[in-house]
């Protein structure tokens, strides 16, 4: 089947004790695409990825990586799958490039180490032991180790964690290049800009389930298209304002003096708003109309509570 997905997860359940960390998750990732699994901490992202990597065995459901079950076909899959763990997994006592060369020896035809070193800027710390590398340097080395074997699918668990902007740029460029070469890339992140800039397909996960998915554009369109924010004196009558705006819009004062208008914001909404303010002799200090960002969608889907 030419169009069979690189990764297909159906009804995945994984429990730690009584607690289902992944609870009926479905996900598809395709070759030549970057699929971002976006979710708050504890949403089950890492556990899901570990089930795909063969590091954990699902309690229920099925996982197919390149058409194979990672639990039973690990030997066939390992040469074809690249893995970057969240905690790195790099031995601390060896030099950075010795580590990369060691991983490369596991493959029949690894990537050219010189080129990879250059691409990810590993040369400057190649002779430094892993223990003494910065977070961003370790991440770049871990990414190099994940792709050195020319994988058909790579799993990157929070690849940008702890990275400076330059490192991130280098990593993103490499991820895009992998995608263009036809590699399926699955990355987990809680960085909105990473998902927005990089992903062809975003899967929002919370409490072990998929709560929304689609392209970034589709996710933004599916949610209310525009938002309107108003700053004025605190304590305005939000119910009266909402009535004046009509169209089923709602007005909330989340922070004293800052009001969010949600619903379908049209040019008429803006006219009605300023009219109502003039009527009440209220001078707005700021009115912002804007597209919603992925962050807004994400917070709407997963809630604003700290956890």
């Amino acid at each position, binding site marked *: 089947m030419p169009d069979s997905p690189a990764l297909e997860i159906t009804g995945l359940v994984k429990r730690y004790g009584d607690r289902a960390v992944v609870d009926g998750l479905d996900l598809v990732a395709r070759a030549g695409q970057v699929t971002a699994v976006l979710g708050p901490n504890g949403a089950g992202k890492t556990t899901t990825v570990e089930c795909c990597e063969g590091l954990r065995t699902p309690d229920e459901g099925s996982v197919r990586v390149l058409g194979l079950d990672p639990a039973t076909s690990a030997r066939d899959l390992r040469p074809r799958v690249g893995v970057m763990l969240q905690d790195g997994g790099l031995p601390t006592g060896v030099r950075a490039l010795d580590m990369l060369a060691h991983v490369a020896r*596991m493959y029949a035809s690894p990537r050219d180490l010189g080129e990879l070193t250059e691409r990810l800027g590993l040369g400057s710390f190649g002779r430094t032991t892993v223990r003494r590398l910065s977070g961003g340097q370790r991440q770049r080395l871990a990414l190099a180790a994940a792709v050195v074997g020319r994988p058909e699918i790579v799993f990157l668990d929070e690849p940008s964690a702890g990275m400076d902007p330059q490192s991130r740029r280098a990593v993103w460029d490499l991820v895009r290049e992998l995608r263009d070469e036809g590699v399926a890339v699955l990355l987990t992140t809680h960085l909105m800009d990473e998902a927005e800039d990089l992903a062809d397909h975003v899967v929002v996960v919370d409490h072990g389930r998929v709560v929304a998915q689609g392209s970034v554009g589709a996710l933004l369109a599916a949610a209310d298209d525009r938002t309107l924010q108003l700053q004025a004196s605190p304590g305005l009558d939000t119910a009266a304002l909402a009535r004046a705006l009509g169209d089923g819009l709602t007005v909330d004062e989340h922070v004293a003096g800052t009001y969010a208008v949600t619903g379908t914001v049209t040019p008429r909404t803006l006219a009605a708003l300023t009219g109502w303010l003039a009527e009440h002799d209220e001078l707005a200090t700021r009115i912002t109309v804007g597209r919603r960002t992925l962050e807004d969608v994400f917070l709407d889907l997963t809630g604003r509570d700290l956890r």
Partner: protein
Amino acid sequence: MTATTTHPGAAPTWRRVLAQTSFETRAILRNGEQLLVTIIVPVLVLVGLTRGTFVDLDTAGESRIDFLTPGILALAVMTSSFTSQAIASSFDRRNGVLRLLSTTPLGRGGLLAGKVLGVLGVEVVQIVVIGLTAVLLGWRPDPAGLGLALVAVVLGTGAFTSLALLVAGTLRAEAVLAVANLALIVLAVAGGVIIPASRLPGPLEHVALLLPSGALGEAMRETLLHGVLPPWSVVVLVAWTAALGWGAGRLFRWH
């Protein structure tokens, strides 16, 4: 083993295992603390006990160096296959190294093979260094026992590597650090390694002979002093390897 099964993309099995073996060996020999415990301490104990007269030893008519060297070699085997391996594996486990390497074509089996062979690699260095030091101090082992002593080393390595992996796979890294060092000291003093079980007080004599440490110590002394491998030691070491290996296989946690 289905050695002919090809896995496109992966390097041949022997090359992966060889790479991991040399990686493990170098990691141990490059680490200062590991070098101290596996090479320097046994050499110091050897020189100290041979030259120093502060410990009164009944050497049963043998020269002091001939009597002590087999036990020191047994101690060295324990440091590399147990203490050093347990500590290295537990920290690798905590840092995710074992998980990462197990996702490469090396796999879990290759990782284990690399570890065991890596220990044997370190032991080659230990035996050469300690053996040469002992020879310089006048050691003259029974030539008939040299081959059998290597068999004893392999059997002891099996038992102690299994123990190391059991401990490393079930306890926290900090706990392993404490347990592995403490167990080494206790077994070295009271486990029939350097001091033969027969010289230990009371019931300890019988206990020590059932321990892998006592069995290995006996096997090294009997082979290198008299050229015979005691069957009882073989039985004890094989039984410990089977039991500890089974336990490690069942209980080892990768996370």
